[in-house]
C-alpha cells in the first residue's frame, strides 16, 4: 500500500448526459464538504439533453483551492465512449472505478482498477423500475464512499441536503448507495493512496453557492423590479433563481401581487428592450444573457448609452464566436461588450471574480445604472456562474438605494420648470431626468436615439452633437472614478500578474507555487472597466507584468496597452488560455517560469 494521500485529490465522474449522475455527484460533494473538507466542484457538460459525454469534477484540497486541476486522481468511469480517453487522463497511482464490462486488457498498469458490475447490480438489487437508471449512479456513490472512507453519516447528510425539497427520495437513494457499499465490502480491496479524513477550520461557516444564484440574490437586494430574459446557457439560471426567490420573497401574502415582473421575452432584442423601457420609466431593470444574446443586444445598448437610460445587463460568458461551445467557459466578451454598439460607444463593466462579488456587483450595478443613467454590464462566466463555490455568507446591504438624479414635480416647481434633460448642471456629465408619471406640466421630455440637444430636442447640428458626445465622455470619466477599485495583493515584487474575473482562483494558487519556487509575484485583479489610475500605478511599479485571461486575443491585454502610457507597454506580456475549461494554476505558473527564466533584453 502506498503512503496515504489525505484530503488532496481530484475526483472525476465520467458519465452520459441525462443519466442522472448530477445528483450522485452533488451528494458526494456535499458529503465531503460536510466532513469539513474544502471542495471545488466543476460540472463539465455538453450542449445536449441526453446522450453526450459529461464530466463532473470535485477538487478536494486541504488548502481550499478552488481552481480546476487537470489531472484526475479518482475516476468513476461510466461512459463507454470516453473510457479510453478518461483512462488516459488520470495520474499514475489513480483509483479507477469502472463498469466491469470495460476492458482493462492492455490498459495502463500504473493505476488501480476497481471494476464494479453496475448494470448487473442495478438490475438485480434495485427494485424501482422507473428510477433504475438514475439509481445506478447512486451505486457509485457507495463505492466511492468506501474507497475514500466517507462515513455513511456524511452521505446521508449529502442526500438530505440534495433532496431538500423531496425528502421522500432520500431512502430509495440511500438504499442504492448501500448496494455500492455492500459490493465493495464483499468484492473489493483498497489498493490506492487516496482517502478523506474529517477536517476542521477550513470550511466553518462557509456556504456553497453558484455565481448565477448570487447574481439573483444581488438583483433582489439591489431592488430590481423588472427582469426580462431569453433562455440561453449559461445565463438562464440567473432569472430562474430570481424567479424562485421572487415567489418566496416578493409576493404580497394578502393579495398575491408580485413586487417584481420577470418576463421570458421572445428573444434577446425584446429582453433588453423591455429592460430599457422599464429603466426609462424608473424601474430598476435588468436582463441576463450569454454569447449570441449579447450580440443581439448591441443596438439597444447603444440606445441606452446615447439616450442615457439606466439598465443592468448580465453577460454570463461562454465560448464564441457565433454559437461557439455553448457549455464551455470563456472571458472573450470583454472587448466586444466594452464598445457594444455602433458609433462612439463605451460602457462600464463590472468584473466579478468570486461569488461574493457576483452578489455585490449585481446589487450595486443598479445603483450605478441609476446614478449614471446608462447601461451597466456585469461580466461573469460559465465557470463562476454555474458551478458551486465555497464562500462566506454574503453581507446584508447597509446602504439605501441610490436612485440617482431624478427630479420630482416639487423640484421642477422650485426650478420654475427651468431644467433640461441633458444639461450638465453639476459638471460631472450626468444630467437630471424625470420619470413619466411625474405630475408637472414641464416634467415631460422626449427621449430619442437620434441627435438631441441639452433640452432633449431633436437636432442634426454637428456642433450640438459633438458637445453632447463630449459631455458623455466627461460622464464616462466620472464613472471611471466611481467604479470598484482593482484588488491588489502584494507590492514587494518586480513581477506582477494582472487579470480579471474567475481566473483569480488559479492565479492565487499559481502565486503560491511560484512562491514555493522562490518567485514572489504581486497581483492586481481588475474589477471594472474603464481601467483607472490604480492600474497604471501597478504597471509602473512592476518591471514585468503577465496579463492572464481566458480568450485567444488577449482582450484585457489590449485594453491595458491602450490604457497605460506608451513607455510602459513593453512591460506587459500576455498569457491566454481558451480551451473552454477553467484555467488551471499550472497554465499560469509554467509560462511565467519560462518567461522569467529568460531575462528581458
Amino acid at each position, binding site marked *: 500500500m502506498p503512503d496515504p494521500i489525505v484530503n488532496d485529490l481530484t475526483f472525476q465522474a465520467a458519465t452520459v448526459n441525462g443519466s442522472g449522475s448530477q445528483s450522485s455527484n452533488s451528494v458526494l460533494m456535499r458529503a465531503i464538504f460536510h466532513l469539513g473538507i474544502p471542495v471545488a466542484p466543476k460540472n463539465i457538460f455538453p450542449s445536449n439533453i441526453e446522450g453526450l459525454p459529461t464530466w463532473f469534477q470535485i477538487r478536494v484540497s486541504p488548502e481550499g483551492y478552488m481552481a480546476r486541476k487537470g489531472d484526475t486522481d479518482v475516476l468513476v468511469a461510466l461512459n463507454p465512449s470516453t473510457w479510453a480517453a478518461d483512462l488516459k487522463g488520470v495520474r499514475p497511482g489513480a483509483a479507477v472505478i469502472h463498469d466491469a464490462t470495460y476492458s482493462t486488457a492492455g490498459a495502463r498498469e500504473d493505476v488501480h482498477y476497481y471494476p464494479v458490475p453496475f448494470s448487473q447490480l442495478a438490475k438485480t438489487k434495485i427494485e424501482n423500475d422507473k428510477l433504475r437508471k438514475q439509481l445506478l449512479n447512486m451505486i457509485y456513490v457507495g463505492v466511492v464512499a468506501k474507497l475514500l472512507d466517507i462515513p455513511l453519516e456524511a452521505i446521508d447528510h449529502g442526500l438530505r441536503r440534495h433532496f431538500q425539497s423531496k425528502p421522500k427520495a432520500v431512502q430509495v437513494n440511500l438504499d442504492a448507495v448501500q448496494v455500492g457499499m455492500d459490493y465493495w465490502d464483499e468484492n473489493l480491496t483498497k489498493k490506492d493512496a487516496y482517502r478523506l479524513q474529517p477536517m476542521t477550520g477550513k470550511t466553518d461557516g462557509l456556504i456553497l453557492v453558484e455565481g448565477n444564484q448570487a447574481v439573483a440574490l444581488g438583483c433582489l437586494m439591489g431592488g430590481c*423590479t423588472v427582469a426580462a430574459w431569453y433562455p440561453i446557457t449559461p445565463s438562464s439560471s440567473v432569472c430562474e433563481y430570481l424567479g424562485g426567490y421572487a415567489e418566496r420573497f416578493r409576493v404580497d401574502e394578502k393579495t398575491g401581487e408580485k413586487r417584481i415582473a420577470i418576463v421570458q421575452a421572445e428573444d434577446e432584442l425584446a429582453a433588453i*428592450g423591455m429592460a430599457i423601457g422599464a429603466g*426609462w420609466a424608473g*424601474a430598476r431593470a435588468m436582463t441576463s444573457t450569454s454569447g449570441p444574446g449579447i450580440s443581439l443586444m448591441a443596438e439597444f445598448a447603444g440606445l441606452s448609452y446615447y439616450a442615457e437610460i439606466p439598465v443592468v445587463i448580465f453577460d454570463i460568458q461562454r465560448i464564441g464566436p457565433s454559437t461557439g461551445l455553448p457549455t464551455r467557459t470563456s472571458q472573450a466578451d470583454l472587448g466586444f461588450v466594452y464598445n457594444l454598439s455602433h458609433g462612439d460607444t463605451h460602457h462600464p463593466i463590472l468584473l466579478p471574480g468570486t461569488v461574493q462579488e457576483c452578489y455585490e456587483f449585481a446589487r450595486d450595478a443598479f445603483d450605478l445604472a441609476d446614478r449614471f443613467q446608462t447601461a451597466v454590464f456585469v461580466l461573469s462566466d460559465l465557470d463562476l456562474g454555474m458551478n458551486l463555490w465555497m464562500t462566506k*455568507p454574503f453581507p446584508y446591504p447597509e446602504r439605501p438605494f441610490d436612485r440617482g438624479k431624478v427630479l420630482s414635480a416639487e423640484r421642477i416647481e422650485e426650478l420654475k420648470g427651468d431644467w433640461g434633460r441633458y444639461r450638465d448642471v453639476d459638471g460631472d456629465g450626468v444630467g437630471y431626468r424625470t420619470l*413619466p408619471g411625474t405630475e408637472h406640466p414641464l*416634467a415631460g421630455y422626449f*427621449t430619442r436615439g437620434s441627435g438631441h440637444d441639452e433640452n432633449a430636442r*431633436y437636432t442634426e447640428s454637428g456642433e450640438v452633437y459633438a458637445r453632447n458626445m463630449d459631455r458623455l465622455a466627461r460622464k464616462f470619466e466620472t464613472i471611471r472614478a466611481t467604479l470598484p477599485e482593482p484588488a491588489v495583493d502584494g507590492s514587494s515584487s518586480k513581477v506582477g500578474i494582472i487579470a480579471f474575473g474567475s481566473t483569480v482562483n488559479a492565479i492565487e494558487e499559481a502565486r503560491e507555487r511560484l512562491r514555493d519556487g522562490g518567485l514572489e509575484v504581486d497581483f492586481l485583479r481588475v474589477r471594472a472597466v474603464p481601467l483607472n489610475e490604480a492600474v497604471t500605478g501597478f504597471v509602473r511599479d512592476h518591471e514585468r507584468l503577465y496579463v492572464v485571461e481566458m480568450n485567444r486575443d488577449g482582450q484585457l491585454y489590449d485594453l491595458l496597452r491602450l490604457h497605460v502610457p506608451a513607455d510602459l507597454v513593453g512591460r506587459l506580456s500576455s498569457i491566454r488560455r481558451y480551451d473552454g475549461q477553467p484555467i488551471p494554476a499550472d497554465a499560469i505558473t509554467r509560462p511565467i517560469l519560462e518567461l522569467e527564466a529568460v531575462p528581458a533584453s
Partner: protein
Amino acid sequence: MSVTLNRIGLARDAYKGAATTLCAGCGHNSITNHLIKALYEMGIEPHRLAKMSGIGCSSKTPAYFVDSAHGFNGVHGRMPSLTTGAKLADRQLVMLGVSGDGDTASIGLGQYMHLIRRNLDCTYIVEDNGTYGLTKGQFSATADVGSVQKRGTVNTYEPIDLCTLAITLGGTFVARSFSGDGKQLVPLLKAAIAHRGVAVLDVVSPCVTFNDHDGSTKSYEWVKEHEEAILDPSFIPYYEEVLVDYEPGTTTDVRLHDGSHLVLRKLHDTDHDPTDRSAALRVIEEGHRTKQLVTGLLYIEPEADDFSTRERLPERPLRDLTEKELRLTREQFGEVMSELA
C-alpha cells in the same frame, strides 16, 4: 376669446406638440390631429401619457402631439418591447405606441406579435402607407399584390395583414381605419385608449410623396373609392351618461372594462358582430377578395386580462417601491444564507 376646457381643465392647445416635419398632406399629420382631438376630449392627463415609437416617418409623430407628455422614440421595430417595459414599471401609465408598416410588419413583426399575445395594455397605432418614406419609396410588407411603386415596379409579394395577424394572435381590440376618416377614427382611438389590453389600429395613411399615385392601393384616391366602413362607432366615456336613444336592432353596444361604451351603428345590411373572432377574419378576407378596404372595429374582447394583471402586478408602480418592500429582511436573508450551508 373663450377657450373650451376639457374635464381636467385643459385647453386643446395643451395636447399639441412641436410643428410637424413631415410632408404637407401626409396622412400621418391627420392622424396626429385626430389623436390630439381624442386625447383632449377624453381628458387624458398628459403626465400619465407615454408616447412610444420606433423608427420611420410615423415614429416621428409622437413629437407632434402632447408636448408635455413623456415620449420615447426608440430603435427600429422595437417599440413593443420598450412599451412593455415601461408599462411593467408603472402600470398607471397610458401607453400610446405609434408605428408604421415598415416598423411593424417587417423589422418589428416579432415584437408586434408577442406584444399582442401578451395583451399588453396599450394602444398600438400603425400608420400604414405601404411604403418606406424616409428611405425614398421602397415597398413595405403591407403593400398589396399588384400595387405599383412610383418608379413603376409592381409588387408581387403577398401583403401581411396586420389586423388578421392581430386577431389570430389573440388581440383584444383590432380595428382598421383611414387617416382621412376622422369621424370613424376619433371614436376608435378613444375606445382603443379606454380599452384594457392591447388595442391595434391599422390606419391607412397615404404617403403623398412616394405612394399616392395611380396604381397604388394606399393612395387617397384609391382608399376613398374602396373604403367599406362596417360599423359607425360612437364613444361614450365612462364619466358621461348614455343620452342618445338608438333604434333597437340598429346598434351594438360594447361596454369597455373602464365603464365606457363603444356604440356601433350598422351602416349596411351586413351585420358584423365585433365580438366574433371568426366573423372578423371573414370580413377582412371578404374585403381582400372584393378589393375593398374594410374599415371599422373588427374585433373586440373587452374583459380579457391584460399583461400586468396576468403578471399579478400591483396598481402601485413597481418603480416606486422602496428598500423596505424590495429587499429581503435580515431574517429572510439569513434564512437564505443558512439554506446554502
